[in-house]
């Protein structure tokens, strides 16, 4: 063996290509949200009153969204359980945990959708100055990511039903977990910034 020359190169890299690829993708996602969060902060800091005078009296649904936040955080726990199940080769448990996670994600989106309908009724639209604009774009961008994660998760769920995963091979579950956890972890930041501050 040419141990000295080959030091640092592993026969199998510590992270498989797919896992590494998803992690790298998260770097780009972070920068995308940085741009939007930065925009939000510019407007938030640049306005003395927030919401601006034209929308005084308008309340974002903090309580409902707070409960919704808890739902989403719960889904990261169930996602973890799904991953642990397949690590132990419990395919049936994997399926049920995945289903629960997906349902929680859908519930989150449903609650948020009904909130939006309510807000539009109360007069907060995309055209309501930067207050409404950045609210819908930033929260909407996150919602699109949750939707992507849910679709991804149901594809993984379908693959689980088809028996494609085992304790020896569960890259599909892993990559979906990474993405799911990221999307969930992003939400409390947005909740605090947009709803509470």
């Amino acid at each position, binding site marked *: 063996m040419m141990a000295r020359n080959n030091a640092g190169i592993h026969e199998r890299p510590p992270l498989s290509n797919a896992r590494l690829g998803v992690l790298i993708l998260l770097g780009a996602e972070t920068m995308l949200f940085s741009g939007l969060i930065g925009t939000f902060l510019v407007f938030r800091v640049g306005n003395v009153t927030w919401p601006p005078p034209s929308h005084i009296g308008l309340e974002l649904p903090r309580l409902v969204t707070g409960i919704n936040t808890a739902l989403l955080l719960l889904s990261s726990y169930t996602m973890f359980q799904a991953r642990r199940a397949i690590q132990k080769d419990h395919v049936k448990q994997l399926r049920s945990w995945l289903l629960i996670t997906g349902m929680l994600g859908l519930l989150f989106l449903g609650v948020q959708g009904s909130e939006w309908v309510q807000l539009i009724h109360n007069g907060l639209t995309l055209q309501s100055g930067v207050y409404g*604009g950045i609210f819908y774009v930033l929260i909407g961008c996150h919602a699109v990511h949750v939707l992507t994660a849910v679709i991804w998760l149901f594809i993984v769920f379908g693959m689980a039903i088809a028996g494609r995963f085992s304790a020896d091979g569960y890259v599909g579950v892993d990559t979906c977990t990474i993405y799911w956890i990221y999307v969930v972890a992003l939400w409390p930041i947005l909740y605090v910034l947009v709803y509470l501050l």
Partner: protein
Amino acid sequence: MHDNEHTSHHHEESFISKYIFSLDHKTIGKQFLIYGLIMFFVGGGLALLFRWQLAYPERPLPIIGASQQYMDEGEVATGADRMWERIYESEKEEWLEVNMPNGVIEPAFYNMLFTMHATIMVFFVIVPILVGTFGNFLIPLMIGTRDMAFPILNMLSFWLAVLAAIVMAIGFFVPGGHAAAGWTGYAPLSSDPQWTGVDWGQNLWAISLLIQGFSSLVGSINYITTVINMRAPGMTFFRLPLVIWSLFIVAILLLLAFPVLTSALALLIFDRLAGTTFFSATAEGGGDPLLWQHLFWFFGHPEVYILILPGMGIASELIAVFSRKPIFGYRSMVYAMIAIAFLGWIVWGHHMFQSGMRPGLGSVFMTTTMLIAVPSAIKTFNWLGTMFRGSIRFTTPMLHGIAFVSMFVIGGLSGIYMANTPVDIFIHDTYYIVAHIHYVVFGGSLFAIFGGIVFWFPKMYGRYMNDTLSKIHFWLTFIAFNCTFFPMHILGVGGHMRRISNPMQYEFLQGFEGMNIFITMSAFTLGFAQLILVFNFFWSMYRGKVAEQNPWQVNTLEWEAPTPVPHGNFGQIPTVYRGPYEYSVPGEEEDWVPQAQPEHAPATSGD
């Protein structure tokens, strides 16, 4: 998910899967090259159009504008007149008639020309060729693997880029014309149609760049994963050739920078199509036009280094190979590139000295910008140190490499002037800036691209490019380039604003008429010189002298692969025993020691 293993045996492929929707990194690299060259001529053609206008304002274009006699008297004198008469007859109120009535470029059309020239050159020529072509072709070959980590994403990256180019091209033909707010798309010029009269052109511009963003996203994920995970045995990070280092760093920059532009473009599209007011200071509850500049340049400055770093990498290869010496200070070269990439994130404000910024903040950006001179100087001195007392072979690629270093030094030095806020207040928005960017991106990146094409052509197509034509192309380009862009420094110091369609309207610029004519003639020479390159490229592809496996005697792994490189690249994956630049090692018989050559041991023993 499949394992990383690929099968190396050949399998028959149809024409479509081999040349169109190919998954092979080499084919995708070549596709990006053809794509980039086509767009290079589109972008260059736009430049020649507005150069004509700058030298001969309000005068009909040659060829496109019919002859003077016909214009003046409506009489048909020549065959060309007859042809154009027919076209103009059918063109009343059509594209030519609107944009170039009687062959004269309209001011609005002029705005569109320079906007699209820069947009196409930056997003559709330099990045696709530097990153798309050389990244795809070189990364798997030089790190010693069979293909990219995600071949399907790789194909997707190319076809998304094609889609982006198509969307961008459609913009030329929509009512209202194409985007005309400059390639930087400053709001509110870009965010509100009432200022430029451009409607769907600007929308398509933004949508096309969004698509291009997705293309570079999947591309960069692919590059980073491949470099981290798929290096050949023995290929440690500090044995990577510098061009791979530069592409790796650039992939990280692209990955992190482009999403910021994506967010800005999304906000822009909402402003234009959904009635939001993010970039409008006048609307009630509206936002801030400066926000666009911050977002754009936060992307834009790393983008500048995306345009130059791979050029630095290519030049490092060329200079080491043809000086027959190890690159001077390999590790400092790597650290300098990392430093440039890092500093690129904290200097964006130097584009905005004139946009309204706290003076204190301006000096912070001034300082960080000047800091970039340090790693850039390290690189320059290392290139000179590499050439110093080397046995230099003045091949065409080497000429391009030397041209890269010289032109980059001029561009870099003029950059230091602009980094100084007080100087920038004077030369901001003048031709000095135009000279600077072209010395860096044309004089730098494009010479590296030309050198890289000539250098790797034997590996890409198994033939040499015709050397006489290559040399003629080099010298014509080099001379015409300097004649075109050097006088722009003088124009700039003389106060010649950029982005004006008719300098003769200003009394203090009328003295520059002669210089503008000289620049335009040089620019046309420069443009026609590129036809030599393209002719040589396609001619040599079929008729060039057949090249041996390693014609330049290079150490790096791509020359270990047979020529032409088969699907799967290597018969057996090579093992790497040394760094990439062991040239003229004392005691060795040859003046080069390939990376895959074992240390004084028989080839592969079975231990």
